[in-house]
């Protein structure tokens, strides 16, 4: 788990790109090597600063994998900054700040004996991959885990799905147009498999997260969802990245929790999405 007592140089560090390849149309997998051995929890994120010095703000990305001092990021070329990122070649250096935020709760009393579902939509899959690796170490025979991944269509090459499968998790695919796996959204797919989780971890676009929240509430399951908001500082000072909470949160006193600090992972019941 993140320790905020970490010295500055562990937060801000130079990282060297060792791989940056396309794994689906417009989707890239990048491995970064940092000098400092990293500790991070699934669901935490990093800010990546681009070499183009006309761009000043870091881009937030989930940590998709962490192997010793190597970090994986899986990202979509969404705009000008990520397009630039996709053009960077191995051996290029970038600054990152990591690890940031609070990840998925994984305490024993939360996961023990649960039927767990990992639900990812599009670029939500990366943060769940790191989670899946960690869960693999933690789960016991009593627990069960199912992975549901949603894609726009078959052209997205169900990116990362094989990574979950090779971890040994049963993995269900859905696409909006049915061109691969189950036709429909991730909730449709989950229902179709007949698996009824009582603990959900989810990451993906806002409409999907709203559907997950509703599903969990209807079914009485716990759900932890990872949110996205535009960020400037990534460490809680700018108040750029807030999300509406149900109750007054201890920091803002106006029901505006900071996604970068209190999140990005929230208990679905606590946020108004």
């Amino acid at each position, binding site marked *: 788990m993140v320790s905020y007592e970490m010295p500055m140089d562990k937060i801000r560090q130079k990282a060297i790109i060792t791989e940056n390849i396309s794994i689906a149309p417009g989707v890239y997998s990048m491995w970064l090597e940092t000098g400092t051995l990293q500790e991070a929890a699934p669901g935490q994120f990093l800010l990546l600063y681009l070499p183009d010095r006309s761009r000043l*703000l870091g881009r937030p990305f989930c940590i998709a994998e962490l192997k010793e001092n190597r970090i994986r990021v899986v990202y979509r070329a969404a705009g000008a900054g990520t397009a630039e990122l996709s053009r960077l070649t191995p051996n290029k250096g970038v600054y990152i700040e990591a690890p940031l935020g609070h990840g998925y709760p994984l305490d024993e009393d939360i996961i023990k004996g649960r039927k767990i579902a990992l639900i990812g939509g599009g670029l939500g899959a990366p943060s769940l991959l790191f989670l899946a690796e960690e869960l693999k170490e933690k789960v016991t025979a009593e627990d069960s885990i199912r992975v549901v991944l949603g894609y726009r269509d078959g052209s997205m090459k169900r990116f990362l799905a094989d990574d979950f499968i090779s971890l040994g998790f049963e993995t269900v695919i859905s696409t909006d147009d049915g061109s691969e796996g189950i036709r429909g959204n991730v909730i449709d797919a989950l229902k179709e498999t007949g698996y009824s989780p009582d603990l959900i971890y989810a990451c993906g676009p806002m409409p999907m997260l709203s559907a997950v929240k509703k599903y969990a509430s209807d079914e009485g399951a716990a759900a932890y969802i990872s949110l996205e908001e535009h960020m400037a500082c990534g460490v809680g000072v700018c108040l750029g990245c807030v999300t509406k909470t149900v109750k007054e949160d201890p920091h803002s006193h*106006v029901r505006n929790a900071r996604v970068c600090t209190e999140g990005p992972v929230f208990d679905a019941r606590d946020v108004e999405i």
Partner: protein
Amino acid sequence: MKDSKDRVTDISTEVGFAGHVFRNPVTVASGTFGSGIEYSRFVNLNALGALTTKGVSAVPWEGNPTPRVTETPSGMLNAIGLQNPGIEVFIERDLSFLEDYDVPVIVNVCGHSIEEYEAVVERLADDDRVAMLEINVSCPNVSKGAIQFGTDPALLSEVTKRCRAKAKDKPVIMKLTPNVTSIADMARAAEAAGADGLSLINTITGMKIDIYKRRFAIANKTGGLSGPAIHPVAVRMVYEVTHAVDIPVIGMGGIASAEDAIEMMMAGATMIAVGMINFTRPDAVTDIIAGIGDFMKKTGVRDIKEIIGVL
């Protein structure tokens, strides 16, 4: 550049401002550093000349919907909408936190009406933990259809007078908006109304549109532009203002390096504030403080006061 012969080793970075002495001229720009709680993990707060806190109002403010921030070439737009937990939480939590540090605190104050400004100023007037008050007049005036207090000399004068009257012995610094035809006129209005100092510039109003989604990039439609992009405008306004009034100025706007800070002081600023660049490099402000010292040694400036308004 002066020769290395001119190298000096004993330098003084102390500056006086509205009756206070600061160990160096560098503070942070309100809203870009919180109250130091988060950055205290990475930055030695005691190295700062002063610490300016995020705008605080009489009651909690919710701020604007998200997205609140987006990037622009060499800058960013923000429309946080002055979210803050209100003066009571601020006093209890933030000022208490800062007690443990040896750094003078400048509290930035916002309000939707003159009465709200007064309430905050009054509440802080006797608090020893506060060195100076900075009054943000870029707040929307709810009774006048959201025009900003800082765009009308008469309104600005009124806010200044009323805050000054409530502040007792605390210096009152009026923080000016650049979105005006003549910032010198505004500065003169504030000075005449009793301001002890001025802060400038706040952000320049801008807009960005996501052409693919056909949507404003900032939910509030417009946001305030800050960062290196606006630095030349900030330097010009600091120069104009310091040539129009006799009260001291805290200069800010796009300062990203010690050179930028020195430039702002040469234009006339007595102190300077580091703003959005904190988001790019949390150690920017301490780097800048160190860099000012290096510049002084390298170019033979023994006392930082020598360079204030040298042009």
